[in-house]
């Protein structure tokens, strides 16, 4: 299987609910990043968590990292319709920081 895999592949929620997306990876990493992509648009960096960190917050975003399980989760609290997008995790690969390996993405739909 691949370096970055997210689940679920798709998630639909109502405004105000929390959305949780998970990411698993295979190799050792230096850091893990989350990006958002609105349909047909570019990638927007949301948050970066380093391998020696376990949790990080940024506004309504909360990211956790469990290096023993090689997994991360992204929690968006109190979601809004504007959060509708695809969310990708991305890691470096075996400590090589020169490129990012992206996951398959979670498509989040937030209904007003």
């Amino acid at each position, binding site marked *: 299987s*691949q370096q970055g895999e997210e689940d679920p592949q798709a998630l639909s929620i109502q405004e105000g609910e929390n959305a949780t997306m998970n990411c698993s990876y295979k190799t050792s990493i*230096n*850091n893990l*990043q989350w*990006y958002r992509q609105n349909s*047909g*648009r*570019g*990638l*927007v*960096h949301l*948050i*970066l968590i*380093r391998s020696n960190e376990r949790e990080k917050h940024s506004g309504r975003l909360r990211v956790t990292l469990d290096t023993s399980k090689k997994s991360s989760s992204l929690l968006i609290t109190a979601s809004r319709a504007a959060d509708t997008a695809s969310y*990708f995790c*991305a890691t*470096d690969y075996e400590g*090589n*920081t*020169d*490129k*990012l*390996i*992206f*996951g*398959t*993405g979670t498509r989040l739909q937030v209904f007003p």
Partner: protein
Amino acid sequence: EPEVTQTPSHQVTQMGQEVILRCVPISNHLYFYWYRQILGQKVEFLVSFYNNEISEKSEIFDDQFSVERPDGSNFTLKIRSTKLEDSAMYFCASTGTAPTYGYTFGSGTRLTVV
């Protein structure tokens, strides 16, 4: 907030033609990248560029591809002889003093090869 700018936003080209995709990274960034995303698929690494040379490239980045930083501000991706399977969204990205921080991506160039 500083942006990475890509032009054109959409390019249609005939198979076999050469295309040049242009990017203006953030001015004080030192690391530059090209990624691509075939419709509905993952974002894939193509090439990284630092100190005026390629630092890493993927197996996708074959002899048909080349990159250049011709004038200290632009960063270009050239595809010498396009194939149908080159149709994708191409993203340029840059990052600052070390590639251990979040990347800033451009909004992409949609390349359609017909």
